[in-house]
């Protein structure tokens, strides 16, 4: 799942990515969408099914990894 500037960088809101861990999924995503997303990445948080996660966390087919750029609600 992509939001805000990360959605602009990918041109989509969601995509299917293969990977064994959260780190794998993020790396494969950046490879697919290129430099603009790579530049955003250091400011993004990564959530797995709505909770903060770590690169080592394993993921399955139904898991949702979200890339969350800096927020601007309010």
């Amino acid at each position, binding site marked *: 799942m992509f939001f805000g500037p990360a959605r602009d960088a990918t041109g989509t809101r969601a995509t299917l990515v293969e990977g064994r861990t959260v780190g794998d999924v993020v790396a494969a995503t950046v490879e697919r969408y290129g430099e603009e997303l790579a530049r955003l990445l250091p400011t993004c948080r990564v959530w797995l099914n709505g909770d903060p996660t770590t690169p080592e966390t394993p993921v399955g087919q139904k898991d949702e990894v979200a890339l969350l750029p800096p927020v601007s*609600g309010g």
Partner: protein
Amino acid sequence: MGQDDWIELTSGEIPFAAIAAWVVRPGCGAVDIFCGTAREQSDDRPRVERLEYEAYEPFVVPKMTEIALEARRRWPQVGRLALVHRVGPVLIGEASVLIAASTPHRSESFDVVHWCIDTLKATVPIWKREIWGGGADWGLHAQELSQVADAPGPDR
């Protein structure tokens, strides 16, 4: 989420008058209500026409509920507490967010509402897009997302 919390993500106008009437409690002498309203000026974007809020929708109400719980832990005297945010288009002058609290005494009503809006802006997955004459882009002054438990204390 107890009956004394009103937590909502809405794509329509925020029901301001209903919340203002609901938040009052006979044991509370103070009500503070904060509204964030869409501004026509944002730094170098002089004539913003409207805002568009995008949210990671399934997790907005859970995050705002977490904020309400933490607010009640820090200010146990809070009577009723409302956190309401809009998604979708918001015209200039309309409210994008509302925080309201009733408390026995006045000072803590300001403190808890101020803490809730500061924490909401840092922890809830929502993004603002500004649409102006010359273009459209995401809100300036975005903050890297943090967790409610890491929110600074009442005395910022």
